[in-house]
């Protein structure tokens, strides 16, 4: 469980501010907002990669007091961009996700087993011997997603995990994340409003560095969203849910 009270994080001229929010295991949370609204900064504060002021409790304990290994043992982060400057194969890239579970010296049979499962879950088993850097953008993204869930933590933060992934695998990935969120807290930065409204239960909206709107699926209002995104947001309701249709300025 994550409890935030009066969080501020500054970098240069940018300030992230979160007045207060509580997020629990079992939630599947979408993080939305325009570019530069603070979504990625928010995730990196949660992951402990940035200094902040204010109160942040992780599973009831002050995050600041947690030693780094314990923080990383509880939270995984898939950054928006990942680079690798060594020609590792796909299997090894996914395997390195298990680092926090090792004694620092070797990966065990259990780690290899977990890696196989993560790869299977994201349908990348056939890529195992390929070089990571030679893959297409979408394939890379699935490999990194597999690497992140392979870390097997109770909180999973994903910054635009679906970008570049084809529709087939988007569906698979979302289903997987949704399954994971039954026992974990899964937070996903996403830009596709229709997809978000179809799949997620809870929504965090950022504008200008501030967490401005927290809502459940059924509380969402077109007016409010139009304000946040600066475009006209229309909900087209149908029997399977809501489709979002936007009009520019």
């Amino acid at each position, binding site marked *: 469980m994550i409890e935030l009270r009066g969080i501020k994080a500054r970098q240069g001229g940018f300030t992230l501010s979160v007045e207060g929010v509580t997020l629990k295991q079992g939630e599947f949370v979408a993080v939305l907002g325009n570019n530069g609204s603070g979504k990625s900064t928010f995730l990196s504060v949660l992951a402990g990669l940035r200094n902040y002021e204010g109160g942040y409790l992780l599973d009831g304990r002050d995050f600041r007091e947690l030693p780094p290994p314990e923080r*990383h043992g509880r*939270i995984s982060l898939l950054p928006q961009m990942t680079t690798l*400057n*060594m020609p590792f194969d796909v299997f*090894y890239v996914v395997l390195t996700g298990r680092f*926090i579970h090792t004694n620092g010296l070797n990966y065990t049979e259990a780690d290899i087993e977990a890696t196989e499962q993560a790869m299977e879950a994201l349908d990348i088993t056939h890529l195992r011997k390929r070089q990571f850097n030679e893959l297409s953008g979408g394939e890379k993204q699935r490999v990194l997603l597999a690497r992140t869930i392979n*870390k097997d933590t109770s909180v999973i933060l994903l910054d635009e995990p679906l970008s570049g992934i084809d529709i087939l695998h988007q569906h698979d990935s979302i289903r997987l994340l949704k399954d994971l969120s039954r026992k974990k807290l899964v937070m996903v930065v996403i830009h596709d409003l229709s997809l978000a409204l179809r799949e997620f239960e809870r929504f965090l909206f950022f504008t200008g560095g501030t967490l401005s709107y927290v809502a459940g699926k059924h509380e969402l209002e077109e007016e409010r969203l139009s304000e946040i995104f600066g475009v006209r947001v229309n909900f087209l309701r149908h029997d399977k849910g809501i489709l979002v249709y936007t009009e520019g300025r």
Partner: protein
Amino acid sequence: MISLKRTNLAMAVSASLLAVITVIAVSKGAVEIHLLGMTEVQRDILLYVRIPRVLLAGLVGASLVLSGTLFQYVMKNPLADSFTTGVSASSAMGAVVAIMLGLGPVLPVFALAGGLTGLAAVYKISSVRGRVQPITMLLAGIVISTFASATISLMKFLSDDAVSSIIFWLMGGFQSASMGKVATLAGVLAASFAVIRRDYLSLDIICFDDTTASSSGVDVARLRRKAFFIAALLTAFSVGYAGIIGFVGLVVPHVVRLLRYVKAAELIPLSLLCGALFMILNDLVARTVLSEGQELPVGIITSSIGGVFFLYLLIKRKKELYYFD
């Protein structure tokens, strides 16, 4: 795992090659020695000149390669080694000061002091709140390197008579090998290896960007500091004992990576063996290619063999090389 078998095989092959080359290097030299039925002089040459020399060459080769490999991890740059980081040049600056002041016997101490000073400067310039910035470090290294080279040039200029001594010393060589130096360097190398082999998995993870690496649970700043210090220490000892020997720390890890040994657990031990092998071979050439016991400075051989080979790789295997960027 299959890759483990492949690695073990490669290790076995390079270890046996190393053994063979060592035997050849011990049996060949300026003076012909028949291992069976040696004269007393030949026995002395073997024990006090040749064997220490072959061992020192191997250890310096391994040390330079380990330091080069670590610098490449720290700076996320395949072209990093003790030269690009300025540690080599500042060690050399310390050594040249020792030559100028006529303190030849304590030259390694000066090289070490110079190297660590250069390291401190580069580290200070390139770290922001304890975090080393790879690109800044590369730039700082170039600045320190240039500064150290300029200082060496000034010292050369100020001492017309010592200039040839300085030039020859800078070209590198293992002439003044001794069992004492062999023991010291073996100790430093073994300790460095023992420390860094516990970080193989972390070294692999810092090949990712810093955000990914940190959130994977690796203390990136601390690992960089550690690897940087070990690399600088190895460079300073190598320069102190054998002068400036270029290209080894760059070429050997590169070749090992091109052979698809890319995980630290494979790359580092294999590079160590190949570095020792390469250097013993180069020194063998340096001390046998000319007649009547004349020698070539070994730095010339490593740079030309290494340079040509590297050029070949650049031209033939451009594609693979790009992936390290």
